[in-house]
């Protein structure tokens, strides 16, 4: 299994969300997003921008430290037609596994 790092637009000045890693393996691709230290709404924006570029069926695991993401991430997913497969709390981290579902984009986005 190899990890592929895809540079994305970095946040600025040392924030920890600087790249996406994609695991190519038998468990299907899971894109890892590190959104620790990012405050609302940045974790949602990162997830949104990532998911919008991916095909249906993609899974994204995003790690956050903002407790507001416990509401924000599932709500954004619900409103935009995606699913949170799992939510985990580990020490100060909140980890969400999100699945991009197929849905009709009424607004073309």
């Amino acid at each position, binding site marked *: 299994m190899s990890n592929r790092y895809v540079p994305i637009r970095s946040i600025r*000045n040392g924030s920890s969300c600087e790249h996406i890693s994609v695991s190519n393996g038998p468990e299907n691709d899971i894109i890892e997003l590190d959104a620790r230290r990012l*405050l*609302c709404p940045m974790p949602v924006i990162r997830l949104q921008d990532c998911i919008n570029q991916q095909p249906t069926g993609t899974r994204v695991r995003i790690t956050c430290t903002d407790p507001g993401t416990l509401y924000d991430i599932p709500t*954004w997913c619900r409103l*935009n037609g995606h699913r949170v497969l799992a939510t985990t709390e580990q020490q100060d981290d909140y980890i969400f596994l999100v699945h991009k579902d197929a849905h009709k984009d009424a607004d*073309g986005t």
Partner: protein
Amino acid sequence: MPASNGLPTCITTNSSSISRKRIQQADLSTSRVIAILAFLKFVITMTIKAVALISGGLDSLLAAKLIQQQGIEVVGINFFTGFCVEGHTHAIRNRAGSRPKRNNALWVAEQLGIKLHIIDVVEEYKNVVINPRHGYGANLNPCLDCKIFMIHKAHDWIAEHGFDFIITGEVSGQRPKSQLRRFMPLVAAESGAEDLLLRPLCAKSLAPTRPELEGWVARDKLKDFSGRSRKPQMALAAEFGFEDYAQPAGGCCFLTDRSYSVKLQDLWDNRGHRQYELDDIMLLKVGRHIRPSSDFKLIIAREEGETRYLSGYRRQFQTIKTISHGGPLALIEGAPLDQQQLELACAITARFSQGRDAESVEMEFSDHQKTTQSIHVKPLRADQINPEWVIL
């Protein structure tokens, strides 16, 4: 027996029957036409789409709801400038606080059952903050330019995504500058949205917009709210069954806050230019900002949540940590400190520790290379902290 008009009854009777039949046929035709027109209107409005600027406040919620009720498909859009108040302070401080930790724009979208696009405009917004054409409000708030900017962005968005018009929750006279009635046409014009900008909460007191003139929305179902009072909005919210909404208008942007604006101005003055990065404006929301000299500034955490947040910046800044007593973490913004400056920085930081009254407090200094050094200082007394050092 002849009828009163002189014609034989059978003829009169037949004429009446024919007339009644014709009237019935005419009624049926009219009903069909009305039904067809209603159906066409329904079809037209179902294909009309609007984007609502959702700030997360009550007004944008109500404005979008009013249009939704008229059968228009509504999608939400929210612009992140970096200066938002909601969410940040709750996320940084008091993790166990009772106030709901949520993005209010998402909450509004959930109440409406609409999609919400949150768009990062931090970079583009810099020019609005640094060079507002219409100047600032009471603090460093460029509200009029901000409004124009956001509606301009929304206008670009609807053109790109095939939407028909824009909704905002503006109320004439609600805010001291950006929502003055005389500026509303200016906002519509300078943003480029022109008559595609609809303000449902006060539309009836403004000139009709294209959605109204085209019949996409019924003007008589819109509102004519005005002024500073929040009562009309709160009554409408109750009518719709909305509760637990974010506290109404104002206070959603740090740039309207005097303390924040003073710190931002200090940042610009000290650097000699007005450029900033997202981390700069985030750090202005946190901690005590104390500038003992033009060479450096301390950002001292005020409680555990802020210490935790500032810890994330340890790699970028020189830092001071209290070792011998409970105490805050402090970031040092500026050039590397000489020994005298370092001791002063430690003595100031120790002032805000639990060892403030002790003869000696051990502090740990970490430089840019992350080399650490233990320093023992006597904490400054409150009266030894020059008020001019304190940036509010």
